[in-house]
C-alpha cells in the first residue's frame, strides 16, 4: 500500500477508527519519548517496566466495572510505585527485588480480575498487545489532555529532575524534596504508560519509554537536543509503524516497537562520533 492510499484510508469515513488510532499512537509515543529521557538517563528502565505492568490491574478493574481506564491505571501504577518506594527502605532487599515482587503480583492480580469479565480472552489480548479498533472518541481528548499535563509538569520541574538525577545527596543538601520529586516522576511515567497502553499494549509499552530516548542518547551529548529528538523519534516511529501495520495487516503494537528498534539499531551503527561506523570505518 502506498502512503497515498494510507492517507486516503485515514480520511475514509468508514475507517474513522484509523485516524483516531493514529492520533493516539503518535501523541502517546511523543509524550513517552519526553518522559523516557529521564527513565533512560536515571537507569529507571526496570521501574518503568514495573509501572507499565502495574497499571494492568487498574485497567482491568476499570474495564470490569466500566469505569475510567486512565484513572484506574493511574491509581494502580502509583500505588505500586509507592509500595516499591516504601518496601525498598527495608535494607535487606535491593530495590530491584522489591520491584520484581510487586510488578508481577500486580500483573497477576490484573489477570485474575479481568478473567471475571465477559468476553475475557479478547479483552485480555487487547490489553496485552494493543489494538486500534473500538477506541471511543473521548479517548482522543483524554490522551491529548493527559499528555499536555505531563509535558507541562516536566516543563515546570525539569531543572529539579535534572538536579536529582545528577546527584541525590547534593540535591537534598540544596533543600530539594527528593522523595517527592521521585514520586512525581513515577506518577508521570505511570500516566505516560496509561495513555499509551490502548494502542500499543501493556507488554510492549516499555519500548515507547525506553527505545526512542535511548536512540536519542546515542545521537547527542546534549540534554535539550535529546529531549526534542526522543519524542520526534517516538512520534515518527508510531506513524511509520501504524502505516506498516495497516498496509501488511500486522499487529500494530508489535510493528511500532519493531520500527523503533530498527531506528535504534540504525543510530547505534551510524551515530556521529560514537556510532559503530564512525569509530571503526571512518
Amino acid at each position: 500500500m502506498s502512503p497515498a492510499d494510507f492517507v486516503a484510508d485515514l480520511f475514509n469515513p468508514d475507517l474513522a477508527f484509523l485516524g483516531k488510532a493514529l492520533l493516539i499512537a503518535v501523541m502517546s509515543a511523543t509524550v513517552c519519548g519526553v518522559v523516557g529521557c529521564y527513565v533512560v538517563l536515571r537507569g529507571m528502565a526496570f521501574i518503568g517496566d514495573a509501572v507499565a505492568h502495574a497499571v494492568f490491574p487498574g485497567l482491568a478493574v476499570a474495564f470490569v466495572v466500566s469505569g475510567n481506564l486512565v484513572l484506574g491505571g493511574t491509581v494502580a501504577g502509583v500505588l505500586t510505585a509507592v509500595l516499591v518506594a516504601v518496601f525498598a527502605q527495608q535494607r535487606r532487599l535491593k530495590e530491584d527485588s522489591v520491584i520484581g515482587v510487586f510488578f508481577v503480583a500486580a500483573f497477576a492480580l490484573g489477570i485474575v480480575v479481568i478473567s471475571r469479565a465477559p468476553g475475557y480472552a479478547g479483552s485480555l489480548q487487547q490489553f496485552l498487545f494493543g489494538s486500534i479498533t473500538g477506541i471511543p472518541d473521548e479517548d482522543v481528548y483524554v490522551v491529548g489532555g493527559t499528555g499536555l499535563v505531563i509535558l507541562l509538569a516536566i516543563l515546570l520541574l525539569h531543572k529539579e529532575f535534572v538536579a536529582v538525577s545528577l546527584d541525590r545527596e547534593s540535591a537534598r543538601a540544596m533543600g530539594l524534596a527528593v522523595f517527592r520529586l521521585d514520586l512525581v516522576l513515577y506518577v508521570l511515567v505511570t500516566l505516560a504508560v496509561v495513555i499509551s497502553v490502548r494502542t500499543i499494549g501493556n507488554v510492549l509499552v516499555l519500548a515507547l519509554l525506553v527505545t526512542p530516548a535511548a536512540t536519542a542518547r546515542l545521537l547527542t551529548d546534549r540534554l535539550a537536543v535529546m529531549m526534542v529528538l526522543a519524542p520526534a523519534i517516538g512520534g515518527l516511529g508510531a506513524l511509520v509503524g501504524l502505516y506498516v501495520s495497516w498496509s501488511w495487516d500486522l499487529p500494530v503494537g508489535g510493528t511500532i516497537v519493531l520500527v523503533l528498534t530498527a531506528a535504534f539499531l540504525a543510530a547505534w551503527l551510524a551515530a556521529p562520533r560514537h556510532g559503530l561506523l564512525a569509530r571503526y570505518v571512518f
Partner: protein
Amino acid sequence: MSVLSVADLHVDLGGRPVLRDVRMSVEVGQLVGLLGPNGAGKTTLLRCVLGLVRAKVGTISVGGTATVGYVPQRHEFTWDFPISVEQAVLSGRTGRIGLLRRPGVADWRAVGEALERVRLADLRRRPVGELSGGQRQRVLVARALALRPEVLLLDEPYAGLDMPTQELLGDLFATLARERAVLMATHDLAAAVHDCDRLILLNRTVIADGPPGELRDRRVWMETFEVGERSHLFTALGLSAESAAAGEPETVGA
C-alpha cells in the same frame, strides 16, 4: 571568628553511636583537614552540617546567613548524564532559583565566576562525561561555589587523582580558603599535612585539633587511626621514631 561551630554533637545511625561529643569550629580564612580512618564519622559529620543527618544531641551553628557549599565524592555524581560543564555548575543553584522559576542573569553570572575560580571557563560547553578526573573534581567545586558559600565542605577531593592534579587542587583549596572556611575530609595524610592550616583528627570524637606542625605526638595519630607504633603512617607524616623519641621518651619501646 568562626563561621561554623559544632558543640556537644552526638549522632546515632541505625541505633549505633557514630559521633559522640564532637566539638569543633572553622573560621573564615582557614583550610581545615578532617582526618580519620574509615568509619570514623567524617562523612557523617559533613552530612550533619548539611542537615542531611539529624543529631541526637548537640548544636551546629553556621554563622548568620552564611551558605554551606558541598562537594561530594566524585562517584556520587552521574558523569554520563548528557550535560555541559556550565549546566552542571548551574544545577548547584537549583534550590536557590526555586520551584517553577528559570535561571536569571544573576545565576549565570554566579556560574561564570565559579568557572573562572576553578579555571574551567574554557571548557564550559564540554559534556561532563568527556572530562578527566581532576577536571570533574573542579566541576563539583564550581557547582558548590555557584552558591557563593561562606563555608565549603569537601569530601575526599583527592581520591583517585594523581600527584600533579592533587597539587593543583590543593593550591585551589588554599586560595578558596582565603575568603571562606573550608573543611576537607580526606584520607590523604601527606596532602592534608602539606595543604591545611589546621587538622582535626576524628575517630567518633575529636582526638586532636591543631596546626599540622603542632600535632607531633605520635599517640594521637595512633589513637585516631588505631595503628601500632611501627605503622608506615608515621613515615608519610615525617614522624619517624627518632624524632618522636626526643619529645616523648616514655613511648619508645613501650
